[in-house]
């Protein structure tokens, strides 16, 4: 961290094309320390791509990405993770065949010193570290209320819980910036409220800054401090969530020209 004033993450004029398709057309925004920033937009607007660029999966064609003021453009994801970024994926990315506990333990990777010799001499070498890390993991398991399923293979538990395990895995690495890609997709109202609660608590208790992609507008307006609206790889609105998603350009993007005009007339009347 260079200074407390530096934004946690900032994208400056980020552009990215896939072949002929311009997925991002010069995106500029920043995530401030301690905030929950919502990233919304219609399908295919470039939200996931923005996150992929920010976490090193894609190298932008133009523009820069900074983390705590330091340029991280083109740095590999594993290096970015070590600088305090964790994320979840839109389509679950849990490690099949492993228990919930082991999945979450992998989240502690950057805090451990894995080695083959340590593995061979487990009892004298790796065990103490494993047990120390286990305590941290158990804290998060408790925080996320996953105690009952910690020994289940991760592929047999319901989708809602799998999403929660993935969130736990990201949290356990003690990130400074947590990026969530649709953590509530496919959930019912109750599960959504649980996750929303966890997100708010994570910021409160752990002081993480959060960038969240979410389609549920009620959630965005409820938990986000600010929102950014993307459409066709451009930012079309940003600011206080309620205000941002009510802007005419946003309504037009979501509902089309005619609907937007109708809503606009309604307002005028």
């Amino acid at each position, binding site marked *: 961290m260079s200074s407390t004033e530096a934004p946690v993450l900032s994208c400056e004029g980020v552009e990215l094309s896939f072949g002929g398709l311009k997925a991002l057309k010069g995106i500029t925004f920043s995530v401030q320390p301690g905030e929950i920033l919502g990233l919304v937009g219609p399908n295919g607007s470039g939200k996931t791509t923005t996150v992929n660029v920010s976490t090193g999966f894609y190298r932008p064609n133009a523009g820069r990405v900074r983390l705590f003021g330091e340029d991280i453009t083109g740095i590999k994801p594993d290096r970015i993770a070590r600088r305090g970024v964790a994320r979840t994926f839109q389509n679950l990315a849990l490690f099949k065949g492993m228990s919930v506990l082991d999945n979450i333990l*992998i989240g502690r*990777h950057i805090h451990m010193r894995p080695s083959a010799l340590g*593995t061979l001499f487990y009892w004298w070498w790796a065990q103490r570290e494993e047990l120390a890390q286990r305590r941290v993991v158990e804290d998060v398991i408790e925080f996320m209320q996953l105690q009952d399923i910690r020994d289940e293979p991760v592929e047999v538990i319901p989708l809602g819980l799998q999403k929660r395990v993935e969130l736990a895995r990201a949290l356990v690495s003690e990130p400074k910036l947590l990026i969530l890609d649709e953590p509530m997709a496919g959930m019912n109202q109750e599960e959504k409220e649980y996750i929303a609660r966890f997100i708010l608590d994570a910021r409160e208790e752990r002081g993480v800054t959060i960038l969240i992609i979410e389609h549920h507008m009620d959630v965005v307006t409820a938990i986000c401090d600010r929102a950014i609206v993307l459409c066709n790889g451009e930012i079309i609105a940003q600011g206080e969530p309620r205000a941002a998603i009510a802007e005419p350009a946003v309504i037009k993007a979501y509902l089309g020209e005619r609907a937007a005009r109708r809503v606009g007339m309604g307002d005028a009347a």
Partner: protein
Amino acid sequence: MFYRRSGIRHTRYQSERQLFPLGFDRFLILSVLAVLLAAPFLFDRLYVTGYLLPWLIWSSAALGLNLLMGGAGQVHLGYGAVMAMGAYGSVHLMRFGAPLELAMIAGGLISASVGIIFGAAALRVKGIYLAMATLAMQSIVDFVISQTPAISGGALATLQAPPARFLGISLSGERETYYFALLVCAVITLFMLNVRRTSFGRALAAIREKDYAAEILGISTLRYKLMAFWVSSFIGGVVGSVLAICYLRAVSPDQFHLDLSIQILAMVIVGGLGSVLGPFFGAALVLFAPILINNALGSAFSTFGMTVPIDLRAHLPLVAYGALVIGFLLYEPYGLAKIYSNVRTYLLVWPFRHAQR
């Protein structure tokens, strides 16, 4: 039924993470170990040196390959070449007067360092290309060994392994040799068991399952794939030297050709990718099934009074064993170990049938 889980209450993480939390599993392991330890006194020496010894050595090799294939999900078709480097390296060192302990480790290091060079080149590609790259490694190593008189003594030459001593005990006797192979196998097995409960093993499993998710958790995929190559090749080299010194006692280039690589690959697949038990099952099946099939066919042919060309009889076991590999790939990709674990699960939840595990 046998596997009673009720009444086991872990009060410490340590006891929960032990290798065999269930009493019956511990009992089974200890029984098998006891039999293996007593084997030279229980069984005929023909069985011990003709069956148990190769079984232990081939199982050790399959365990090493399984770390790479089952653990990290990387194909390797040149494991025989890896073993060859360890074998030749250690035999040469011992001929120069190095003690076995040192020669063995050095053999492992030679395999690991050459293996990792090929690995680094090969890991730029995935899947079928990686398979081809490791196959190329097999051919190159074969070629270099047989065409360099300084290494092999000539393409058709055999190189005698000098008499070895391990920790002061001479390995010229059959019993000593057997116990030495058992010790090496036990150490490798313990390592493989521990892999599953350390951050090292989890990192390998993570890149095998979802490399992108592993990366954003701070796991450098290239680094861990290379580590897997390194460790796996090291084990291959050590086992290669054990094979040369304890079993073959004289090395020649043709012992480490593609046949050996395929044989060990088959053991890993038939036994069970990623399982520690698997390689033992796989090695037993691949080593002994051809013999059994041959005997069975022989008696069947003679009872029915058929005369079968000797050629065909020699090749039938190979055909059967090819069919076996294909059968496993199709019907039980996780091999014999999975069948064992299904039985175990069945007994674990008996008389119920629908518990997950």
